[in-house]
């Protein structure tokens, strides 16, 4: 983890001189703004950050950050980020990726980075569509979605990112919405301070190819009834009138109305993001309409040894035992003989 210093950054310090080329109205603008704001508040030296990406609209973000940046190739951001972090654990490595980049072509690297607990922050822009290639369905597109490559509707079941992440032994999973700068800021900061792979799914609206995909969670009229923002230690209560809650019944989550059927606030589950058992987190991450609200905020955050920490420990252990430090010592180790 990088040390803090007193740079007193403002968001502008993280803006690069490159012209931002996303479509007007794209959710990516909001993500960029909240990331820049978050970093300014972190007060970690700017040169410690590396923003890594793959290919896609999301993956242009490193060009717009005035930090070290690496725009990779399609699907490989997690692997490149892994190399950077392992090479120098002092760096703060952020991966910018999308649903196609991380979960289709890059699915393998995604699950393995999570499994290894590489201390990188993965911001997964989920717009449920391929934007940069102009509108084909993605691994998170809702079943039945009509796109250019599914003119009669998709026949594939989508991934739920939270389920996949937790299934890959993910220790940190959070969800936010592109336009919600306050929640995003809070979630990014928690992810940044988390020790290990942190995945943040951002529900991101693509105004051109999948506009309105998340309207149910974003429009003023419906969002409070259709989403629940989780906070560690707080009751799982939601709704416009804060009269709905989540309970566990018959090993399933259930939405109830407080005050009905004898349900009181006491019966409502309290969110424990630090519970190692993934059962409830997995269910919370998988909640979707119409039976459930979609969960936002930090759903899971459990501490475990990071890859870098384990590596450093192993190096120290081996070095304490081995007599070999230099090339000359290595060259002369083992069976050798003299020719006189």
């Amino acid at each position, binding site marked *: 983890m990088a040390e803090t210093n007193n740079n007193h950054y403002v968001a502008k310090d993280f803006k690069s001189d490159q012209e931002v080329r996303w479509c007007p109205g794209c959710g990516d603008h909001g993500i960029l703004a909240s990331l820049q704001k978050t970093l300014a508040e972190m007060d970690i030296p700017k040169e410690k950050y590396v923003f890594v990406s793959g290919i896609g609209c999301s993956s242009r973000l490193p060009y717009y950050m005035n930090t070290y940046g690496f*725009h990779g190739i399609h699907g490989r951001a997690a*692997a490149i980020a892994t190399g950077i*972090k392992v*090479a120098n654990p002092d760096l703060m490595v952020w991966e910018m990726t999308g649903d196609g980049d991380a979960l289709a072509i890059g699915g393998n690297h995604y699950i393995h980075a999570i499994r290894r607990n590489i201390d990188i922050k993965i911001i997964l822009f989920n717009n449920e569509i391929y934007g940069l290639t102009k509108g084909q369905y993605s691994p998170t597109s809702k079943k039945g979605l009509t796109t250019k490559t599914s003119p009669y509707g998709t026949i594939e079941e989508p991934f739920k990112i939270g389920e996949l992440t937790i299934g890959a032994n993910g220790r940190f999973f959070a969800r936010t919405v592109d336009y919600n700068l306050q929640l995003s800021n809070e979630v990014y900061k928690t992810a940044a301070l988390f020790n290990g792979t942190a995945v943040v799914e951002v529900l991101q609206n693509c105004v051109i190819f999948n506009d309105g995909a998340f309207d149910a969670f974003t429009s003023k009229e419906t969002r409070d009834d259709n989403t629940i923002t989780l906070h560690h230690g707080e009751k799982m209560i939601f709704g416009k009138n804060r009269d709905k809650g989540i309970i566990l019944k018959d090993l399933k989550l259930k939405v109830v109305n407080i005050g009905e059927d004898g349900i009181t606030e006491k019966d409502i589950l309290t969110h424990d993001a630090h519970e190692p058992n993934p059962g409830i987190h997995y269910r919370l991450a998988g909640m979707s309409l119409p039976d459930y609200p979609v969960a936002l905020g930090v759903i899971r955050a459990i501490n475990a040894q990071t890859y870098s920490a384990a590596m450093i420990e192993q*190096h120290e252990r081996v070095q304490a035992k081995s007599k070999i430090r230099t090339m000359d010592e290595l060259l002369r180790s083992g069976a050798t003989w003299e020719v006189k």
Partner: protein
Amino acid sequence: MGKRSKVIKKDEVVIRFSGDSGDGMQLTGTLFSNTSALFGHDISTFPDYPAEIRAPQGTVGGVSGFQVHIGHKLINTPGDFTDILVAMNPAAIRANARWLRKGSTIIYDSDNFTEKQIQRAGYKADPFVEDKLDSMNLIAAPISTLVKEALKDMEIDPKTVLRTKNMFALGMVYWLFDSKLKYTEDFIEEKFGKKPLVAEANSKVLRAGYYYGETIEALTPSYRVGPAPISKGTYRNINGNQATSWGLLAAAEKAGLKLFIGSYPITPATGILEELALRKDMGVKSLQAEDEIAGICTAIGASFAGRLAVTSTSGPGLALKSEALNLAMMTELPLVVIDVQRGGPSTGLPTKTEQADLWQALYGRNGESPVPVIAAGTPSDCFHFAFQAAKIAIEHMTPVILLTDSYLANGSEPWKIPSMKDMPDVTVPYAVKSDKEFLAYERDPETLARKWAIPGTRGLEHRVGGLEKTIKGSVSYTPENHEFMVRTRDEKVERIVMDVPDLKVIGRKTGDLLVIGWGSSYGHIATAVTELQAEGYKVSAANFNYIRPLPKNTAKVFAGFGKLVVCELNTGQFANYLRMKHQKYNYHQYNKIQGLPFTVQEIKDYCIKLLEGKKNG
């Protein structure tokens, strides 16, 4: 030592251990070659094994062999033909019959020559008659019976007893060469230290084999091969994969960098990842990636972060890495990509050798993608060329492909250990913060290499990536900028020629015929040409290690000869490359695509044919 009725002094002997893939032949061969090297022989080894870990027992396809060429003179190849064959079963006879020299000695486990085993190997009744080997010096040893007898008083299970058969055969061969058993006994003790009974059994059987050789008079003549005239110094045995790994470590030390390897296991390159994974004591970070692509991508990330980064693979893996290799080329980051070539295409012949990835290395990427290509010539010089690959990668800020192959990777030879103070320096072109704005693609006027700005350095924040860039590092689709950058990247690689040593000629600089090779064909070509020269032919050889760029004096060397022939283990990839690069010459080709190295004899035969037998052109 026992009395020896007849001793033959020889300059060189080729011996081959051959049996089922579970018979321990690789280990037996390695122990024999190490013992020989310690005695002072020059040696060259060639393991030849099936892809299956335990192929069907007793079949020709399941035969695993290990050939050792030992010499009182300098040895450049594992030898064309075998003088002594140790055959653990009839299949080993069938697999090797065509490689036996006239008058060879065949030591075989007669217990395994049952009707069933003989038929399984594809014979009707008598392998030796059917393959016309009955005039050879045949030594039938009932090894299985003798091993059981030797260990009858020990309380070990029958399976372990039979596993010691290879030590019996090895003991017999040691007797044949009057070798010392100490190295092997020390090895056994170390390997089975935790299982004293197994160690004792192996040692006992080794000695039993040795004394059996002494007892039966049939094992004559025995051989004496004196020490080779090799220069003074400290030596060790090294195979190509180990030498490659150590060359990279040496370059890292000289550059003051730590090494990172991201790789995925693949035959025959895995030894490099395994070797470097051991070296955490030297600060090596090794990551066994989830796939070939992650192997190179983690290495690219590590390079961006300031490590000497490498990825090792074989042909199929290089194919998977090609997109990422282009990313390294485009971002102009140092990276060493090692392709330990094997028989292709596709999965091909995974455990056999071939030189057929040359075009893939040179051209196997989208767009204009100049990448330097270097090829090692012998198992031990993998050290030197891995070092050079890393040095060029760092000093010229580029990925470099190092081509070795299965023959080099698994083959071993004695190697005079260098001293690090004699190795060249490696200068790292770090970017440093100055008053001027840092431009990511600003270049050294001489090499055209950009500067390496390491994340964590204040004031050098910049972005790289696969999109075309301006000198400043901004994305640009401007037509003129693209053409300029494409030509500049190409010119950068061409300028590496300044660091490429002149092509060496083996023999006179003029003559009737120049035998051209590249990479691992060095030993066979050098031996063939040296023998032809001794026979009076005006033949020389030139073996290329630097493929892209080619050495400056290439055309000058070619001009000295009446005819040129390119020998390579593919259908003519290097010959065609030379036709493109040096068009005015006529190139003959000698090609072999059998998953096997050349033989010295076939190269000689082809040269004599080209010369129409003329010795005084």
